């Protein structure tokens, strides 16, 4: 029987300030099993990042519960089991005076604990992860001097250096060209072979349907959750309902890509 990594039960979340209440998520139920590669898609402002923040414990659920490996997210402390790549990571790298190895090693901060310094074992782990992502030769380079694709690999390396069983990626390919996006998905498939559970928030629906096992479509409500094949077969009416405007999925057989 499949082992659930994330169990999202009846989650609702509303952003509240003095002037207005903005609902972001309503009654979301979603289960993700160990080793699954799930893509979370939806239009801008559909609640994808909110759901990720709830999963990571940055936001606390106002209604419902999220369980991570059987433990409530209210008590769960990310750090050891979850690796995270943010949509903003690339912008932090610009102009920052740090080497690739310093940035990747920072992924071990929580695991090491307070007052403890990095050891040879940690540096060996760094070399292993950089090698796995084919960026070993960039180890001493300044992070600002890398291309968008290389920088993205550095952030994946930071997320993987503490050997997490779950990888959460929030729009990691924003601002990256097609060649580097392709390389990025090759890395994810490599990780999937190692039974890493992957939750990917993205707008690249075309690439997602060819790589992810499952697709979840969010727009305040969870409108769809199924395999990538089932998602490919969604009709124009269903897709238009999710995205809020008329659209359809077009498949190009010659290069096996889909686009909206």
């Amino acid at each position, binding site marked *: 029987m499949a082992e659930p990594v994330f169990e999202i039960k009846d989650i609702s979340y509303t952003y509240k300030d003095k002037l207005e209440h903005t609902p972001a998520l309503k009654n979301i139920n979603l289960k993700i099993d160990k080793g699954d590669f799930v893509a979370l898609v939806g239009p801008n402002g559909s609640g994808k990042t909110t759901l990720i923040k709830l999963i990571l414990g940055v936001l606390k659920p106002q209604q419902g519960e999220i369980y991570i490996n059987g433990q409530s997210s209210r008590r769960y402390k990310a750090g050891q089991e979850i690796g995270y790549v943010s949509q903003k990571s690339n912008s*932090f790298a610009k102009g920052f005076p740090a080497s690739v190895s310093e940035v990747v090693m*920072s992924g071990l901060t*929580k695991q090491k604990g307070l007052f403890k310094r990095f050891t040879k074992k940690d540096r060996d782990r760094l070399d292993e992860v950089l090698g796995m992502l084919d960026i070993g030769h960039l180890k001493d380079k*300044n992070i600002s001097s890398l291309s*968008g694709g290389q920088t993205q690999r550095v952030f994946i390396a930071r997320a993987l250096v503490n050997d997490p069983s779950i990888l959460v990626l929030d729009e990691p390919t924003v601002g990256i060209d097609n060649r580097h996006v392709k390389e990025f998905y090759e890395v994810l498939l490599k990780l999937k072979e190692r039974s890493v559970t992957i939750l990917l928030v993205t707008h690249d629906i075309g690439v997602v349907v060819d790589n992810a096992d499952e697709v979840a479509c969010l727009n305040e409500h969870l409108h769809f959750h199924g395999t990538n094949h089932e998602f490919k077969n969604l009709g124009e009416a269903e897709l238009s309902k999710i995205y809020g405007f008329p659209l359809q999925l077009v498949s190009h057989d010659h290069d096996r890509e889909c686009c909206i």
Partner: protein
Amino acid sequence: MIEALLDYEFIRYSFISGIVAGLIAPLIGTFIVIRRLSLIADALSHVTLGGIAFGVYLSTLFTFTINPLITGIIFSILGALGIERLRSVYKHYQELAIPIIMSLGIAVGIVFLSLANGFNQDLFGYLFGSISAVSMNDLILIVSIGIIVILFIFLLYKELFMVSFDEEYANVMNVNRWIYIAFIIVVALVISASMRIVGILMVSALMTLPVASAMRITSSFKQLMILSVIFGETAVISGLFLSYHLNISPGGTIVLVSILILMGTIILNKLGVSRNGGRNEEVPGQTQG
């Protein structure tokens, strides 16, 4: 000056204080600059002025003398906590905390200075730095602060790096929130320790200029820290020598030497002598191919 160093205690005290300031100000300055909080040092130095003025005023009220450095440190720490609090109140306009606290510091300073019957020579030393004003008590305080700062950075280096590089990631990874508070208190301590030599008005320069210079030519964060300290110490030592021989306040000479170093690194960078290809000063958000 070497002879004076051997002959006069007060010169030795100033020199040792300067060495401590040249070490800890650029060290903490690297984290301030990369967190884009450079103006915080300015705000806290003005709050420290308020504290010093308060100390001077208290001394006029009582028969015993209160070391204004102590009241300066207390005000600086309170100002630091105030900035951190205001940054959470104005979540979307966090930079507002700086002018609020800065104007509060200046206002308090003016009020207490007026109550204490205005300027005196000692206060002039606090504003512009002084080579003759460091007492034994000041020296003990400055060296103690130096030890606290170095221990803080040594023990919490990886947490400070993570928070400085990517605050969102640090929050997701549950890096303790008290590190932010501890950091800003340490900044307040560094300002208090450095102002005796550099002066309140120029203390932020010793925290930022050496880092701004080093950023032009380094490729890693550790290199940045080491080079910033080398530049900071060069500025302090040569600034103190110039100050002694020209008989002027050391704050100005130290900052001018720092500016010369900065210009030198900019020229080196233009000539292509750098390990980062001049990329550390790029505007965030610019993408490369």
